[in-house]
């Protein structure tokens, strides 16, 4: 028990050292992710009392402030991005962020004493940070690793890796065939349809 406490203390001290050295600005990767997690837990707790739209509205500002959707959408679309005009780009960012909020709203809707635990974080190349956390449910642990980078002194999430599966790669792969067969408009149409369906699903 003391050993565990000692380890936690060291972890906290290391973290403080880390924050004071590298993260001079007032947001830190850990704070960004902690805030997101807090809102997701809140959304789960309100799953019984608030309807989908209300929980969506609560999550919206937090998700929009936590993720760098501009970078995310560029990576997801890959080489197709360059062929889009500005209007299409902002349309895609808008639809994509709506889908992210809708997915969170529909997935985090039941609370049965789950919690998020911070594990550690480490610097990667080019100033990016990987922050490892786990989602603790009654019968299993799900690892949630976040990749963040700093944009204009703000730490923003660019990828979430759930149990080893990267969300960015998954979407990149998932959207590639649609982009090839149905083009940009087809892709946007399908994404909007997803957003709509997530909203009406009980």
């Amino acid at each position, binding site marked *: 028990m003391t050993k565990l406490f000692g380890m936690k203390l060291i972890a906290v001290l290391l973290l403080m050292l880390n924050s004071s050295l590298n993260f001079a600005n007032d947001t830190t990767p850990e704070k960004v992710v902690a805030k997101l997690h807090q809102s997701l837990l809140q959304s789960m707790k309100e799953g019984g009392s608030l309807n989908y739209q209300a929980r969506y509205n609560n999550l919206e500002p937090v998700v929009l402030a936590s993720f760098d959707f501009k970078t995310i959408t560029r*990576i997801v679309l890959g080489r197709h991005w360059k062929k889009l005009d500005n209007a299409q780009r902002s349309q895609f960012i808008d639809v994509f962020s709506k889908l992210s909020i809708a*997915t969170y709203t*529909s997935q985090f809707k039941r609370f049965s004493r789950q919690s998020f635990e911070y594990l550690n974080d480490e610097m990667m190349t080019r100033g990016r940070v990987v922050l490892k956390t786990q989602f603790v449910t009654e*019968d299993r642990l799900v690892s949630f690793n976040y990749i963040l980078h700093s944009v204009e002194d703000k730490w923003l999430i660019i990828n979430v890796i759930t149990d*080893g599966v*990267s969300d*960015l790669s998954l979407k990149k792969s998932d*959207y590639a065939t649609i982009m090839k067969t149905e083009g940009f408009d087809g892709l946007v149409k399908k994404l909007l349809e*997803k957003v709509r369906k997530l909203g009406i699903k009980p």
Partner: protein
Amino acid sequence: METKISRVLSYFILLSTFLLLTGCQTGGVREETDPLEGLNRPIYGFNDGLDKHILQPIAKGYVAITPKPVRKGVTNFFSNLAYLNVILNDVLQGKFAQGLDDTARFVINSTVGIGGIFDPAGHGTLPRHDEDLGQTLGTWGVGEGAYLNLPLLGPSSTRDVPDIVTSTLLNPLTYFAAAIAAPITAVNVINTRANLLDASNFRDAAALDPYAFTREAYRQHRTSLIYDGNPPVEEFEDFFDDEESASLDEDVLIIE
């Protein structure tokens, strides 16, 4: 009995030799393409139809009528039954200490845990490990080869097919008469599908192209297992290289 096993064996040895050979050509580099997509997609469609119309409804019914602790016991039982394959692959990967732990785990759970229904070893200090021949080949440097969608069995790859042989041969159930093994296997299939209901619900909610989604999720999950849950983090270097060279160009302009 013996003829059944030898027939299964020769089929898989033939298939895996062919697949390993084709797989080896890709080396250790992860293939982005899916050379057998033309074959895989129809099989995915077939499996998916079977799943949606038969297996998934049965799995949902099973969850509805079976209490959680019972399902947990069923999952434990089949996981224990398949555990000799884990031990073999511990050894093949040079994880000897883990191999000893897993042997102790298998013995304790098979006896104290009443045929593996309970997991006393896991409550102690012997957690369950996930190893198979596909992961072993991965740690030996064999590339994943071509992505495959096998009829009934679902997502696989040329690297993962040989494991079907070892896991079949090392599963005690293989050596029981079909009249006993078949209904037990049916329970395993239903229970396994039930455990995947959350995952398939998420796929249905998120995927635009379920085939591509499943393929990517399978590949990444396998890579993660090969690295025992700590795969190297994807860097998306291509993207950031482009970004950097763009900003470098600007720097050069300023210097000039």
